[in-house]
């Protein structure tokens, strides 16, 4: 019989801190390729200058271990865990402790502020943050944690509302275009756009954010949805906001849509925008006890 030496809680926490470090200093390959493609398509001199600065910045950040952007965001953790994972009841503690340690060691900018007093907790942990989204995956003892820090500036175009069904997909398109046109400039374009359609109010919002986990350049498996993604991408780019608002062809690197069946009386929708610095990393603990940490290039 092979004896499996499963990692300790401390070891998992330590690896998670490193995953957070990777998330804020190394831009995933899919996003990097998206930015390089944008540079090859862009004709406007000023916009090219901005994209070149962005691409150089990504390189320097990785080489020197400097956070890509000083706004290391509020972190959402997407956790997939097997029912036989030995520290099932400790998952929340592990994630909160790793966040506190990473804030000190990476370091991250403290970004958790009390909504009434305005007091910053100083360690990125506070009421309901970091947000932890847990899925029970299977019968095994494995753990996957996707680290998804998201900056404040890119949140402003985001929106969530419940439409009536007769307003249809047209109203979804209208809402997205209006919001990007009004608030896109300040959100550090080229953006990656996540859209959630259907479900309920909060289901649509969660789907919109989760859509940003899909790799830049990857289309939905559903043909009709894939077509809608390409249509919205084309429309958003025709707004000509361009890299950092300087004008040009590339306002968004990609559009991802996730859906849920809707209630007969409602059509919920949400828009979640990411700045060009779409940062994500993953830590996986396998059943043989080995641990992997890497930038997360998407589903």
């Amino acid at each position: 019989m092979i004896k499996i030496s499963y990692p300790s809680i401390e070891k998992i926490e330590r690896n998670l801190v490193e995953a957070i470090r990777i998330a804020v200093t190394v831009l995933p390959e899919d996003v990097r390729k998206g930015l390089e493609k944008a540079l090859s398509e862009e004709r406007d001199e000023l916009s090219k200058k901005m994209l070149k600065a962005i691409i150089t910045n990504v390189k320097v950040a990785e080489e020197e271990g400097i956070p890509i952007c000083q706004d290391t965001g509020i972190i959402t953790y997407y956790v997939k865990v097997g029912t036989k994972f030995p520290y099932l009841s400790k998952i929340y503690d592990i994630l909160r402790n790793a966040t506190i340690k990473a804030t000190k060691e990476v370091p991250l900018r403290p970004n958790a502020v009390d909504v009434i007093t305005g007091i910053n907790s100083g360690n990125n942990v506070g009421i309901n943050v970091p947000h932890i989204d847990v899925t029970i995956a299977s019968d095994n003892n494995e753990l996957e944690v996707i680290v998804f820090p998201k900056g404040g500036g890119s949140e402003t175009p985001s929106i969530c509302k419940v439409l009536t069904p007769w307003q249809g997909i047209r109203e979804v398109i209208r809402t997205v275009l209006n919001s990007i046109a009004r608030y896109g400039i300040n959100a550090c374009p080229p953006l990656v756009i996540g859209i959630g359609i259907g479900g309920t109010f909060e289901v649509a919002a969660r789907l919109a954010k989760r859509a940003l986990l899909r790799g830049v350049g990857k289309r939905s498996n559903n043909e009709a949805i894939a077509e809608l993604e390409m249509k919205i991408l084309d429309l958003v780019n025709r707004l000509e906001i361009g890299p950092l608002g300087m004008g040009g062809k590339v306002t968004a690197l990609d559009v991802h849509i996730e859906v849920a069946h809707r209630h007969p009386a409602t059509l919920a929708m949400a828009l979640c925008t990411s700045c060009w610095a779409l940062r994500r990393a993953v830590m996986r603990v396998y059943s043989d006890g080995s641990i992997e940490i890497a930038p997360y290039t998407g589903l």
Partner: protein
Amino acid sequence: MMGERILSTPIELNEIIRVKVGDVLYVNGIIVTARDAAHKRIIRYCKEGKRLPLNLKGLVIMHAGPIVVHKEGQWVIKSIGPTSSYRMEPYMADVIKITGIRMIIGKGVMGRSTMEACRKYGAIYAIYPGGTAALATKCIVRVIDVKWLDLGIPEALWILEVRMFGPLFVAIDAKGNNFFERRLKRVENNLLTLQKELELIPDTCSISEIIEC
């Protein structure tokens, strides 16, 4: 025509009025960071007749909330980059008037009241490419001092010595030109075209009103 120039602090009025929208600048000297809370406090101090903790005349305010650590008795900037400047729009004109700064560094749109204060008092607004904090961090020579640390690290006034800080793109000049006024008009027209083409109900709010705020 785009011009590139290097400015050193303190910046004189006759230097700043030569700078035009579209110019690319690099700054040598002193930059002071300030976000929402610091802007509010500058205005409150002025109303209450209190002295500011430093003389900002001729210097540069950067809208930024850096990551800073205290190491062996020294403050070290780990990462710094611009924050969205529109949040400071309600305070900016007063801050320009009170402090006598010659330049604001930030990102994104700034509006009409900032533009008017820039014209009246001789200042400019320049943007640093948003999100490119690794590059900006390398232009920081040292932390000279910090004031108002009680506001928290991101909100404090960090007084920084910088070398060739840039590229900075001039978005508002001292003559009252605002690059983003034209840009927003263009985006608004594009939106109208798309709405017509798709037969969508037009948006009731104008995009240009962002500038008016």
